[in-house]
């Protein structure tokens, strides 16, 4: 069966998105990308230095990959809008991942500012993918504002703690017609697999790969896990029971009538 993810009119075979910001050496990026099978890669525009005499993260992005520049560093809607426009002007394309974080202590995304940016940029023709707390109302607001997907966090950024927000993400998956891409907090392939089994459209993984001892191997493991989770979702897991069958059922009397 053809099971491709469509975002902003683009068909993707891989449902794993990867990051670039935390490698000890950007030269690892091509091998990580290849092992993961990912087709989408996010880059912080604030790290991109087009006129640099000293090398540039962009030199290491495999040419076939779809670039997802992000607005990391933005603290307000205005800053994010400006970064997005700069990214487009610099030739990074129309896709933009919105990150508006105005809390340096917890690094949680600001839903209100994110919605403002989404509205402005969607009108300008960007394919907007906002990073967000998994909040039902924020997700609906983002959808109304023209987002192409929503990207709820599984756990606070960089924590590798997995799907701590599982119940909320399940609600978003149930409610949203937009793809739900789990972003942040996925530290292990099993966690990404679980998100996919639940029906997430894709996962974005950065720290989980970059902080492992062997990023290339871990990237491959995440790619496999995301595929396995998707397969399981499509297959439809068998029903589970929470209790064993009771030997004296409570409703047995209904059948015991003469």
């Amino acid at each position, binding site marked *: 069966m053809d099971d491709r993810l469509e975002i902003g009119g683009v068909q993707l075979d891989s449902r794993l998105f990867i990051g670039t910001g935390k490698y*000890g050496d950007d030269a690892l990026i091509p091998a990580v990308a290849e092992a993961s099978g990912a087709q989408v890669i996010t880059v912080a525009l604030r790290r991109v*230095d087009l006129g640099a005499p000293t090398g540039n993260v962009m030199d290491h992005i495999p040419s076939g990959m779809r670039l997802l520049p992000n607005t990391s560093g933005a*603290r307000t809607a205005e800053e994010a809008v400006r970064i997005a426009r700069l990214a487009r002007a610099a030739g990074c394309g129309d896709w933009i991942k919105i990150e508006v974080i105005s809390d340096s202590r917890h690094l949680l995304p600001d839903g209100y500012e994110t919605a403002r940016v989404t509205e402005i940029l969607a009108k300008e023709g960007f394919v907007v993918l906002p990073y967000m707390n998994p909040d039902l109302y924020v997700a609906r607001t983002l959808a109304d504002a023209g987002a192409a997907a929503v990207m709820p966090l599984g756990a606070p950024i960089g924590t590798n703690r997995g799907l701590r927000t599982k119940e909320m993400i399940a609600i978003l998956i149930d409610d949203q017609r937009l793809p739900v891409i789990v972003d942040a907090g996925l530290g292990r392939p099993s966690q990404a697999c679980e998100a996919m089994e639940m029906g997430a459209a894709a996962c974005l993984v950065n720290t989980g790969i970059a902080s492992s001892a062997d990023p290339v191997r871990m990237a491959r493991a995440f790619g496999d896990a995301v595929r396995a989770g998707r397969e399981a979702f499509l297959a439809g897991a068998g029903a589970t029971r929470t209790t064993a069958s009771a030997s004296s059922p409570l409703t047995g009397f209904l059948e015991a009538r003469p």
Partner: protein
Amino acid sequence: MTGFPELCATTMDRDLASFFARVTPDDVRRAMARSMPSADDFLTLLSPAAQGLLEEMAQRAHELTVRHFGRTMQIFTPLYLSNHCTNRCVYCGFNAGTGVARKRLTMDEVRAEGETIAASGQRQLLILTGDAPALAGVDYLERCTKILRGMFPSVTMEVFAMTEAEYARLAAAGIDGLTMFQETYDPVLYERLHPAGPKRDYAFRLGAPERGCRAGMRVVNVGALLGLSPDWRREAFLTGLHADYLQRHYPNTDVAISLPRMRPHAGHFQPATAVTDANLVQILLAQRIFLPFAGITISTREAPAFRDNIVPLGVTRMSAGVSTAVGGHASDDNADTVQFEISDHRGLAEFSTMLRSRGYQPVYKDWEPNAHVAGNRP
């Protein structure tokens, strides 16, 4: 809520010795395992009992740093604009009483220095002056910033304490960060070390980082000059509490910590106490565990071997390719204007090679400057 000055005064009066006397190694392990350590957990990590657990703390600090910052190191370099100074800080080579040659760069010289530094590959600049507002004040800094802004995505400053309005003016001119060392949080010692000049005003300096946050500075960096006070544990504790206070009250500002240690300079002041390498490492680890998202800066005051070894321990910003002489980048004949002797003379390329050999990526640019600078929400 109490302001930082009150918190600082209370902490100066606090009996740390009896707190430390009760700390056990198990307390230290519990404190380092906490996902959001309290102030007392932080103090526990600074205790003598924690000295025996530095390796465990280092593993924890490393893990937190890799998670939040990756294997990356921000690189910056200072540009000394002027060494005129009206203060008499007893520990500084620019002190008004020293015979050091005085110089203030002209705008042409600022441009030449900026161009030389930018051509070396540096993208993050820290501008410095002494404290002589009549000679190198806000107007002068504003003019310099306008020139340097076009060459560097990030220009931060380490200059005299200012009012909130002055900070706002420089933020609008394109300064996106502020480094303000309290030198010592101990008001009695502070008075002794600053016998004359405007910097004598302890309270005005103590409030400067907060005024910078209010004025919309993107990054605010605090620190104590380690070695000035014999009580380095209290100084390190207050530095961490200061950063924590600013983070909680100004969530929109990136709060960072610097760990400068006393260096030889043109005067004859000797540090009150030798903060050993092990002490400095303990401070670094405790601050990293207490404030997992805060930037931590180590300058070229430290020796190359030491700097190389602490790369994985929690440091996120290092200077490289440094000259502390006024106009020392574009010209060689300013050697008599140095503030203090640096220990690590490696240039940007050599330093970057060292980082890469340790599996770390040097990051030269980490900010896309905005035309306007947004202030904090109230």
